[in-house]
């Protein structure tokens, strides 16, 4: 082969490489997606990269696995067994259930019970479990409050025991965030470049966003669509608690599903709070706790926990921790 032919061949190899690269890029730019109904909500999963289908499958399996442990309506779940045996005996459970309950109790302690995984009896009397919403009598609330105490959750090796009959745990305020932590581990193990997972409003952004930052809409608590866009970079968790998700209105008053473990009534100090954190379970549980606490205590505690928050008060006015306000683009300034 003479010199010119070598150059020609090299040229063609170069062209072939460019074309192949373009195709691979196109393939990797289209995510593998799915939507599944689980944990009393919807999970929306998008995974990018060459092994996206395998990763997507693993993520779905992980979600289903954790749902089987925490589904308080399924007789096979650990949570159901723990609740059924309240005041009777300790129940042997899956190590992941132990881990999750430990973490829930830890957040309960750190928030002085504003988040309480032992909230279940209270949710029951308000009808948030059977969806037969009702306002319980003062007497019922008073009596039920005696059963709401995370200190009555006894964890001993791989067993969990609730001290009193009638007590019950509900991991609905932490399981979705916890699951996102597990998913993050999977994505890391599988060398996933980029993914975004939304579990009932709890979002995990993983890897670098296509355009530098992820744009996460924050639901408008009273009107249409979103109230603004939160711009976040890289891998992070975003969780929101609001009074619009599950609620009922009686005599003009709104009663939402997030109950204040101290008063026994639905929390109503603010209408929504979004937490940005680097741990899924922390963000999930703290959003509930902050919603119960209200603006001032939420802002103080956000600082203590090292997380950022965007809140919406009763007058639909936004409030922020320092350092996140500039990452938030209100919807009325969207300039489209």
């Amino acid at each position, binding site marked *: 082969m003479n010199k*010119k032919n070598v150059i020609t061949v090299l040229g063609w190899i170069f062209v072939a490489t460019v074309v192949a690269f373009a195709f691979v*890029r196109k393939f990797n730019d289209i995510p593998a997606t*799915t939507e599944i109904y689980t944990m009393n909500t919807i999970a929306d999963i998008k995974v990018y990269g060459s092994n996206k289908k395998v990763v997507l499958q693993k993520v779905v399996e992980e979600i289903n696995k954790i749902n089987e442990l925490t589904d308080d309506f399924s007789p096979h779940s650990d949570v159901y067994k723990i609740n059924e045996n309240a005041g009777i005996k300790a129940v042997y459970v899956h190590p992941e259930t132990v881990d999750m309950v430990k973490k829930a109790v830890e957040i309960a302690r750190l928030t002085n019970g504003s988040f309480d995984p032992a909230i279940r009896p209270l949710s029951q009397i308000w009808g948030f479990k059977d969806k037969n919403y009702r306002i319980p009598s003062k007497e019922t609330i008073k009596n039920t409050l005696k059963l709401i105490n995370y200190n009555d959750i006894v964890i001993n090796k791989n067993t969990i025991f609730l001290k009193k009959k009638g007590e019950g745990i509900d991991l609905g305020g932490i399981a979705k965030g916890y699951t996102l932590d597990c998913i993050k581990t999977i994505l890391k193990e599988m060398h996933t470049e980029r993914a975004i997972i*939304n579990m009932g409003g*709890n979002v995990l952004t993983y890897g670098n966003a296509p355009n530098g930052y992820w744009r996460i809409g924050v639901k408008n608590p009273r009107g*249409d669509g*979103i109230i603004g866009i939160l711009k976040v970079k890289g891998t992070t968790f975003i969780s929101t608690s609001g009074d*619009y998700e599950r609620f009922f209105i009686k005599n003009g008053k709104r009663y939402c599903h997030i109950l204040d473990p101290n008063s026994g009534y639905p929390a109503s100090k603010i209408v929504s709070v979004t937490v940005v954190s680097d741990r899924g379970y922390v963000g999930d549980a703290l959003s509930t706790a902050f919603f119960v606490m209200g603006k001032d205590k939420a802002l103080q505690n956000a600082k203590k926990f090292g997380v950022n928050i965007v809140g919406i008060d009763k007058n639909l006015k936004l409030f922020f921790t320092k350092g996140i306000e500039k990452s938030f683009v209100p919807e009325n300034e969207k300039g489209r």
Partner: protein
Amino acid sequence: MRKGDRIVILILLFVTLFVAGQYLYSHSNKVLKKEVIIRSDGKVIKRIALNDATKMMFTVKSKEGFLIVQINNERVRVIKSTCRDKLCMKQGWIDRPGESIVCLPNRISITIQGEKNGVDSVTY
């Protein structure tokens, strides 16, 4: 190799490079068509191109029940649902790519897809 061959090869090379370059360029600036995607139990059952001329009302069925969906002015909302708490209806209009309305009891989701001015996800 004669001079003619070289010219042909060079032309081919440039054409290919041009096509590949165009492909990469258009791809990096791709704008997904704005669409409304309707899923029942996670499976896509309907796709509707969304533009200012799209004006319609239709029923979406699932195993659990049905919704009536309205599209108008590049926005989408649910105007009737067989579910109990009607949270899907209370959500009102959505208009941004990335936003969605979900009716959990009916297992129906309505998502706007597209790239311009969109969001990657919504926290609620």
